[in-house]
């Protein structure tokens, strides 16, 4: 994919959130997207047609992260009210509320089978919640982090968490092993490459770092943007050819994966770009910003 294929053309602006949008996520097939923000709502959009579909209101504080099951039937969200909400997408009702985090919950993800929700909290812990039973107690608590856990990723067998303590910890359920990769810088966001062999970690020293998961080797560092105090997402494009991420000045950056050169950067938002999410198949990207808009980008 050449640089010209990068989604740099703004197609739609999704407006509706009042206040900052903290996360915007494509669903698994990329037809819809979810956003959540400081207005305590989660919104479901069709980003391609620019339609707002549904609003989910139940959180008492800002919603920091949202994730959708592969079959689009359930949602999970978390936020400042220390709870993890498990939603039914169609009815818009909360099926379950998982309480247990001692403070704000930063990130949340479903596992492959949508049976477990793993949440990462400011209380330095990762907690796994069982969606199948009616228990609202966590089935696993990982508290080896020494600072707030900002982001979590799941593979089929592993739970990966990135923390402000500078570590990216991989918990391999199959092997019963924890691998801690100390990056030395507070990790803001982690995201898996599409082949799941690498982790892209956004650090607060305005650097994205690409780690090889098998060896823990630092493969590349991507610099140029500003990321010093905000939780900002980063991700790889659907072909794993580029790395993209927002900046605190409202820019979006594209780096070449291999040689780490900034291929493209342009002003997307008027304020901090909090979240980027890349379409799983197409050259399409959504970005969310503190300015309260979600923008859809295509080539």
């Amino acid at each position, binding site marked *: 994919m050449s640089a010209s294929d990068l989604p740099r053309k703004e197609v739609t602006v999704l407006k509706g959130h009042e206040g900052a949008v903290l996360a915007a996520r494509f669903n698994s097939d990329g037809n819809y997207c979810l956003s959540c923000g400081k207005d305590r709502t989660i919104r479901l959009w069709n980003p391609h047609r620019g339609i707002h579909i549904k609003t989910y209101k139940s959180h008492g504080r800002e919603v920091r992260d949202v994730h959708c099951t592969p079959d689009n039937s359930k949602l999970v969200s978390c936020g400042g009210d220390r709870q993890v909400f498990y939603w039914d997408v169609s009815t818009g009702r909360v099926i379950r509320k998982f309480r247990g985090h001692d403070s704000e919950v930063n990130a949340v993800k479903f596992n492959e089978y949508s049976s477990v929700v793993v949440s990462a909290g400011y209380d330095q812990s990762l907690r796994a919640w069982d969606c199948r039973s009616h228990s609202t107690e966590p089935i696993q608590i*990982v508290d080896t982090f020494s600072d707030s856990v900002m982001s979590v990723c799941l593979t089929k067998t592993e739970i990966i968490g990135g923390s402000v303590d500078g570590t990216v910890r991989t918990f391999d359920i199959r092997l019963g092993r924890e691998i801690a990769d100390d990056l030395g810088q*507070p990790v803001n966001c982690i995201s898996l490459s599409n082949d799941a062999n690498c982790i892209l970690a956004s650090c607060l020293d305005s650097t994205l770092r690409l780690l090889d998961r098998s060896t823990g080797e630092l493969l590349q560092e991507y610099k140029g943007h500003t990321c010093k105090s905000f939780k900002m997402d980063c991700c790889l494009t659907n072909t794993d050819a580029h790395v993209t991420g927002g900046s605190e000045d409202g820019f979006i950056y594209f780096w070449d994966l291999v040689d780490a050169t900034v291929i493209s950067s342009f002003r997307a938002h008027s304020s901090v770009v909090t979240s980027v999410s890349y379409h799983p198949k197409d050259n399409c990207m959504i970005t969310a910003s503190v300015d309260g808009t979600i923008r859809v980008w295509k080539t």
Partner: protein
Amino acid sequence: MDSDQEDFVFHGTPIEREEDHSSRKKKALAESSGNLRSLPAWKQEVRDEEGRRRLHGAFTGGFSAGYYNTVGSKEGWTPQSFTSSRKNRAEVKQQSLVNFLDEDEKAELEGRSLAASSKFDTFGFTAAEFARKQAEKENRSRPSAIPGPVPDEIILPAAESIGIQLLKKMGWRHGHSIKDSHSSSLYEARREARRAFLSFTSDEAKPMLSTSMPAENNFEDVLDKSAEDDDKSPKITPVYMLKPKQDLHGLGYDPYKHAPEFRESKRLRTAGGRAHGQRARDNLFGLNSGNIAPGFGIGALEELDVEDEDVYGSGYDFEETLIEEAEEPAKLSIELHNNRPRLTDKEHGILAGFQLASNSDYQLERFEPPRIPKEYEPIHKFSGPLEIGSRLSDPPPLEVAPPEDSNLKVLIEGVATLVARCGKIFEDLSREKNQSNPLYSFLNGGKFYDYYSRKLWEERQKRNQTRPLLDRDDSSVSKMTAETRGRILGERPLERSSVAPISFDTHAGVKFHTNLVDTFTKPIVFNELLKVSKPFKDDPAKQERFEQFLKEKYQGGLRSTDSGGTSYMSESVRARERLDFEAAAEAIEKAQLAKSSTLNKHSMEFSVGAMQFTSGGIEDAKSVQVDELPGKILPKREEFQWRPSPILCKRFDLIDPYMGKPAPAPRIRSKLDSHFFIPDSFKASGTEEKVASRGDALPMTQSQMSENTNLVEKEPEVQMEIENVERPVDLYKAIFSDDSEDEGETSAVNKVENPEKKVEAANATLNRLMAGDFLESLGKELGLEVPPDLPPSLDKARDPLHKEVPHVNDIGNSTVSEFTKEDKSLEARELVQNLSIDGKKYASNDSLHKRSDDPSFGSVPQNDGKMRSLYDQSDSSPSEDERSRKVSKRHQYSSYSDSDSSEQRHHSSSKRRKSHSSREREKPSSRRKHSKHRKHRDKDSPERSRHRSKRERDESKRDKRR
């Protein structure tokens, strides 16, 4: 008129007046005829001919049953039930007179039938008929035991002919022979019994009704015969017996129903059998001889009598019938082929009606075994000589100096290697090919033949060595020669020391396996490793596996899948062990390198250092540094053991790696650690220090690195000393030290270097004890006193387990108290014991402690070097400590109040402040919390409350971790 009357002369008896006599009758008649009809139904009475009313029974209608005894139903007659004429086409019913007759009419009619009077009823037909009717009548008149009409077949009234009646009157009885009987009643009884028995065996028991005639015949016979023969009297009047059931068929089942021809054959057979029996009976003693009781002999003067017959033994006939039943087909064949003798056993299986063929078509074919060629030998002979055997047994050729021409030397060596690899054929081939080439003259016994043969031998040895090394390691040792050992040990022959290593690339462009082996093999290293260090000495099996691992690691080449008995181990265990091994090997290798440069004394330390790995399972974390690029410090990778919960595994559809294994036992040390607080300064400075040291370490050469690791390995000792110095007290001992001294528990621990400091620290910790309250109260409860002072030597006795307890000066007093409270349960017994032993010494010295509280409170700062070293120690120590420290560090946030450490905290949390904008806002609030805590502290009993909350939190934390 009267005179007239008197004049009458009465003759005869006067005719009785009929009125009186039959008044009732008349009345009945009159009623029935006319006037009764006019009466209403309920006044009508039914009377019989005699004019009597018939009572049917109080409950069955009384006098008016059956509509006043007229009909069976209201309508008068029982209506015929409807029957569809579809199935039963109007059948013409044969009606006879009888159908329309009443009972009495029938009775009248009966009288008219013609029958022989009983007088002339010679054969009893009439009598039988009469009797039957009589019985019927009786049956009808009186209630019988069997409800309903009794079947005629069952009840057969005995009808006796006049002859029998006559005989009976003469004293004859049924079953008796007609003769003048002189025999006793016993005799008669026995005979009867026997006869009954016999009649069982006979097929034809006559049905009763049809027996009159034969009976008569028999009588005649009997009468004839009785005169001539007394004793032989089986011809008797047959007792009327029904046919006994002798077969095993179901009741009423006739096996010959559809095959009457077989009935015939059966009849024939049984008849034959009986004929046989009767034949035996015919001669005088024949019958008896067959039936003599087995137990009773006959006296010489006695005659064989009927009495001697075996009454109880199964009769001959009986036996035979049994046999007949069993062996029906065989019997049948006997019947069919009477002329033939008994069939042999072999022919038993023939079906009835089939004959055995005289000659069969089936013949067993037999084949000849294959012929073994004459020149065949059962032992395989190899075309070439057996190489392996010869190789080891051949005396090695002498060492020969290599040729000066390096090309030639390379060539010779190459050829030797090839030959060693491919066998003698290659030698022959190349010899043939290069016959004219002078370079190859060594093959034909030329100038350098000696050298060639030597090389060849060496190569063969080498091949022999390298190949089987994987599977036989120790066995080959015994066969080692000096040369092989030397090679394995990396000792090179003196002559060859200057020679460059063999390179095959120059020769023929062929890469050999041996070449590969050479490149991957580090014989020096691994052999020496084996020699020098046995890190798993205490576990021989593990040590063996470790050696195997080393071999494989350094040997290269193919790896056997099942390496040395690890097959029984689970995958995870193997993986963990492998990690252990790798770490151990690395350590050993480094140590080895270091050893070569430094002194020998280090060798001691590997074993010490290596011993760390022995506990593998417990020590759950090893920092294995992977791929540190030069110049790049981070990321640093660490591995820990992590135990996912079973349900998590289930939800992820994975197999629990720790399935079936008990939860790791909480280690006391870690538990201890978790209750001690390390100040942030420690941590922070430690990280920096660590980073710095890493930065320093990286550019180092290999040897330096190894040295460094050695140093690290050496550090424990040093640090232990340091710790012993620094660490003021082990808490238990601090509190209960004199007891331990009293008990003589003093273990070999280093002497305290500065006792005063220790005492001070101990006092300080004690002062901070929340447990002071607890102790006091406990002491009060027990009625004991707490000793006012503590002897300075109390820290001597120290449990070696608690070696890594961090600096006590930095421990918040609340922690200590918490700790004591926490472990109260654990140590309760000890404590109580101690108290009971020397409790008096614990005078309530609370005030004293409190007095010394203040100075010790501020005595936090330590010199940096010590802290660093401590930190390093913790770094190299298993991660759980570290983790627990982190946890404890976490605790500090809420409780720690020292200005010094708070500053440190700010430093450490500066990162976090940066992390999120939203958190910025929350920071003040958290700080507010801290300040609140501080305020609390100033209050009256702040420590207790805080302590409690923290304990709860701690507990919850531990629970979660579990």
